[in-house]
């Protein structure tokens, strides 16, 4: 008991020290006078809670309790294979119909969530399937976004024409970076990609003539529906807008719904492609390489090209999402492509469960929607975020929805007696 007591006192003091700058000091603005005001109550309260929790070993007990529970809980029933397409179809139909009943802000948040779903799915291939730690993922997102903004600004290319170009540009950037780096060991890759992400951001910030520097690029064209714009008036002489063409009244929410549906379509496309890929030889090779690179080499698989394909695919997905991001925002600047974006996408992958697509989708939705819903806690966003990650590492290191790989099985006929 005395040892517990001593530890509890120390931990409480430490908690006090850490919370003083966050909770103990308030900035008082009085006209032009700015002053700091101390407020001891919250700090003392936190210290008391931490002291009690530590004294009675609450975290340890909770951890063992959770471990016990998660072992006892029934595993989620595996859906019979025949029901899966029905369920997936149902989810897709709901996702398509939902925006027509939802509010503007809800649709907007959902669109943002879909962007993170795309980013998460792409990074999941790199980190989850191929086991390559990429900390500069946002660089490829930026390449896609700026790629679209510049192509559309200088050559007036439409969103749909730019989309494949952006994918190619991001993939090329990925391969260019990946080729020298992927020969290195895993940790070096993390460091180099981290640096690369920053380099891209600094380039965007400083290549004023091309990227507009910190001011960014504005007035980026939105996607069109077979050439029909979503706007009150056509932007070009003789253009036709969506509502004019169909003889409808103009509703500004139509634009939002359309953007949401485009994002949904893009996310579904990515999901489909990844689901094909992981059942193809290349997807199997990604996993094999993550499991045992030496064994792969001994069988004639070239590790560099296999890693490069995963890295390039991840990059192209980010470029794909980036182009949409630019089109949706209508305005981009380097501030949207800071390291924190890479960190959030990585957190989505880790929280969701590396290699688990359902998990990544749920985590992407949670991490974008929750901060919007719980706006009053916005200040503590990063704090809560870190706490959740730490707790996940303790209680559920395999993520929200642990990955279950699609196993290739030999049909029954071959399974007759040895």
């Amino acid at each position, binding site marked *: 008991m005395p040892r517990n007591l001593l530890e509890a006192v120390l931990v409480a003091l430490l908690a006090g020290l850490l919370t003083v700058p966050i909770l103990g000091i308030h900035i008082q603005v009085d006209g032009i006078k700015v002053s700091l005001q101390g407020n001891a109550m919250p700090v003392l309260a936190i210290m008391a809670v931490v002291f009690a929790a530590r004294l009675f070993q609450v975290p340890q007990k909770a951890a063992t309790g959770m471990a016990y529970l998660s072992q006892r809980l029934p595993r989620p029933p595996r859906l019979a294979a025949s029901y899966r397409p029905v369920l997936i179809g149902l989810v897709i139909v709901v996702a398509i119909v939902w925006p027509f009943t939802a509010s503007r802000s809800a649709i907007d948040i959902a669109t943002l969530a879909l962007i993170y779903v795309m980013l998460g799915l792409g990074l999941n291939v790199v980190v989850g399937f191929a086991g390559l730690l990429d900390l500069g993922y946002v660089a490829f997102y930026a390449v896609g976004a700026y790629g679209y903004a510049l192509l559309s600004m200088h050559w007036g290319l439409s969103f749909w024409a730019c989309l494949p170009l952006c994918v190619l540009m991001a993939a090329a950037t990925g391969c260019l970076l990946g080729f020298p780096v992927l020969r290195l060991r895993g940790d070096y890759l993390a460091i180099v990609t981290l640096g690369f992400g920053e380099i891209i951001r600094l380039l965007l910030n400083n290549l004023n003539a091309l990227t507009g520097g910190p001011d960014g690029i504005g007035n980026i064209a939105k996607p069109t529906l077979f050439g029909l714009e979503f706007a009150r008036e056509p932007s070009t002489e003789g253009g036709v807008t969506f509502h004019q063409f169909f003889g409808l009244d103009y509703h500004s929410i139509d634009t939002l719904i359309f953007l949401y549906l485009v994002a949904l379509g893009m996310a579904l496309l990515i999901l489909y492609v990844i689901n094909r*890929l992981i059942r193809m030889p*290349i997807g199997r090779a990604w*996993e094999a390489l993550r499991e*045992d690179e030496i*064994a792969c080499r001994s*069988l*004639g698989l*070239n590790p560099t090209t296999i890693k490069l394909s995963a890295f390039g695919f991840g990059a192209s997905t980010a470029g794909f999402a980036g182009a949409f991001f630019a089109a949706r925002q209508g305005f981009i600047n380097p501030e949207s492509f800071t390291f924190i974006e890479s960190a959030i996408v990585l957190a989505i992958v880790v929280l969701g469960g590396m290699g688990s697509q359902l998990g990544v989708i749920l985590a992407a939705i949670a991490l974008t929607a929750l901060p919007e819903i719980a706006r009053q806690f916005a200040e503590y966003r990063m704090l809560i975020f870190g706490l959740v990650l730490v707790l996940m590492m303790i209680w559920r290191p395999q993520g929200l929805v642990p990955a279950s790989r699609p*196993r290739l099985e*030999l049909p029954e006929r071959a399974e007759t007696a040895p």
Partner: protein
Amino acid sequence: MSLESNPAATAETTSTPSALLEVRQLSMRFGGLLAVDGVSFDMRPGQIFAIIGPNGAGKTTVFNCIGGFYRPTSGTVLLDGQPIHGLPSHRIARQGLVRTFQNLRLFRTMTVVENLLISQHTQLETRLLSGLFKTPKYRRTETEALERAVFWLEKVGLLHLANREAGNLAYGQQRRLEIARCMITHPKLLLLDEPAAGLNPQETRDLDRLINALRSEHQVAVLLIEHDMSLVMGISDDILVMEYGRPIATGTPAEIQRNPRVIKAYLGEE
């Protein structure tokens, strides 16, 4: 090809055109340790050749040098007359030289049949679009790959376990799976690193039969590291004995068993 019990003499013989593998004065140094010191030997197509020696003699290191996992400090390795030393290991594997590992390197969380598909990666239709759209060619190569997997699983008696996770197989089954995973790539030369380690006597007899069958039915040459003397003496055409990285004798099993240096290395020090 003549069989000298003096390795230095072997090294000087000019390469015979029919040789499948020629290893000349191979050396590998790790810091202060000369793990392999001037090893030379030849293998004919279809030959079964064994490397034996006490623990730490450098046998696995020879495999690693031949297979391109280590870059040898000096020496040359020719496969079918072409130099392969210095090539990356996956290139060497594609030229028909594949190996198993002393400590097993299966893809443990994948199924048995998936293990066999991965080793066929280089023969499969891997282009992105054909797989995305399931073109006829893609389907055909996948079916053929599965058929080859079934063939080899039957051969090594693992067909009934095809859909199990490889890591859950019994040890002897994992050893056989590793051999099947190599054979499905149509190698010219199969390197087996202690294939009988951990097997019971019955499994060792099965292994003996399997290796002989591989040679006679699939024209593969086998280079073998093994401690089980009855297996080695029964199966090998020729044997190289190593001690402290150096080759101390080469010859037929009968010659090796009579060789005083070998007897001293094995009996005098154990």
